[in-house]
């Protein structure tokens, strides 16, 4: 039968259980620390590789960050044989429908958008999640465009972007994130 609920019993039991749990968690943390870090890094590398033309340096090694109005953008410059061929910009927006959206935007030296990959988003499945390239053609309309002539606003707001049906907020957020990356790129990031 259970031990009687005396003060000493209760305190000692809780103490022992908490100690044992902490020990188990410590072990689990140590064992998973490396795979977690690796998985996050792999995701970043793959996003950088996807949005940039071929390069032979290590953009992650040369990354630099720029503070903008409400956060930090990270630039990953790509070079081929020492020549600057473009940069991947890790950008964000807080205007998404559910939570922050993080994008990796690949920009060529002249400011043309090469490709865009969604790094993190929790937009509505079936609607807002179509900002991802593999889910619809929405992101593709940005590829190869020069934002100085391609106005990154949805058509409803007077821009050149075809919004996703029933997901105007997500479409606007996407434009916001790309604009933020492009502006910072044009403004501060010179090689």
């Amino acid at each position, binding site marked *: 039968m259970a031990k009687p609920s005396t003060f000493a019993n209760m305190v000692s039991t809780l103490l022992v259980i908490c100690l044992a*749990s902490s020990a188990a968690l410590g072990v689990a943390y140590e064992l998973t620390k490396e795979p977690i870090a690796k998985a996050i890094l792999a995701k970043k590398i793959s996003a950088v590789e996807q949005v940039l033309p071929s390069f032979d340096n290590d953009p992650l090694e040369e990354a630099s960050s720029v503070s903008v109005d409400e956060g930090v953008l990270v630039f990953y410059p790509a070079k081929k044989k020492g020549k600057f061929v473009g940069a991947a910009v890790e950008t964000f927006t807080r205007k998404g429908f559910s939570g922050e959206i993080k994008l990796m935007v690949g920009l060529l030296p002249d400011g043309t958008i090469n490709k865009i990959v969604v790094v993190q988003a929790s937009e509505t499945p079936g609607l807002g999640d179509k900002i991802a390239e593999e889910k619809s053609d929405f992101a593709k309309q940005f590829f190869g465009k020069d934002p100085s002539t391609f106005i990154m606003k949805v058509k409803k707001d007077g821009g050149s972007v075809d919004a996703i049906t029933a997901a105007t907020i997500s479409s606007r957020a996407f434009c916001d994130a790309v604009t933020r990356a492009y502006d910072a790129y044009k403004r501060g990031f010179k090689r």
Partner: protein
Amino acid sequence: MSLWANFTKGFLKENPVFILVLGTCPALAVTTSVSNGIGMGLSTTFVLAMSNLVISALKNFIPDKVRIPCFIVVIASFVTIVDLVMAGFFQAIHAQLGIFIPLIVVNCIVLGRAEAFAAKNGLLASFVDGLGMGLGFTLALTIISFFREALGAGAFLGHKFIRGDGILVFVLAPGAFFVFGYVIAIVNRINKMASGGK
């Protein structure tokens, strides 16, 4: 009760979602696609079986008045372990389930089985109960997410079988309630017929 009956009762007769109506928060929130449903179900199954096992082993050492904090510490530890392991080895599904993994801690099914079953029964019976209940939960999530993904996105496990969009409302929150309601009605009907009613 035989071990087999103990194991299978979670599937239909005492299905945690459809009959006991516990754990409806994850059942409604993550069932937008079959892979999410299965991932959530199996994570919960692991936590249920392991916490039932440990709590059953400790039941004679835990004073009655502090049993709930003790149970919660055990459950929370297993949930954190699942969270870490998923983040390390199953990145894709972890990114999808996100906040709902830590929330398994407060899933009523886990504490419910600890209190109602594991605290009174032996090691093996408790483990089997946790396993059965967890698989019942997985089954429920799979059924709900199957209908939601099929109707809402026209897909099964991410493979589209129609062109274009499905009936989008089924992917959204109201669709979860529609499907949930209909499936509960059908399961109740089946249970009634099985127990000799008409």
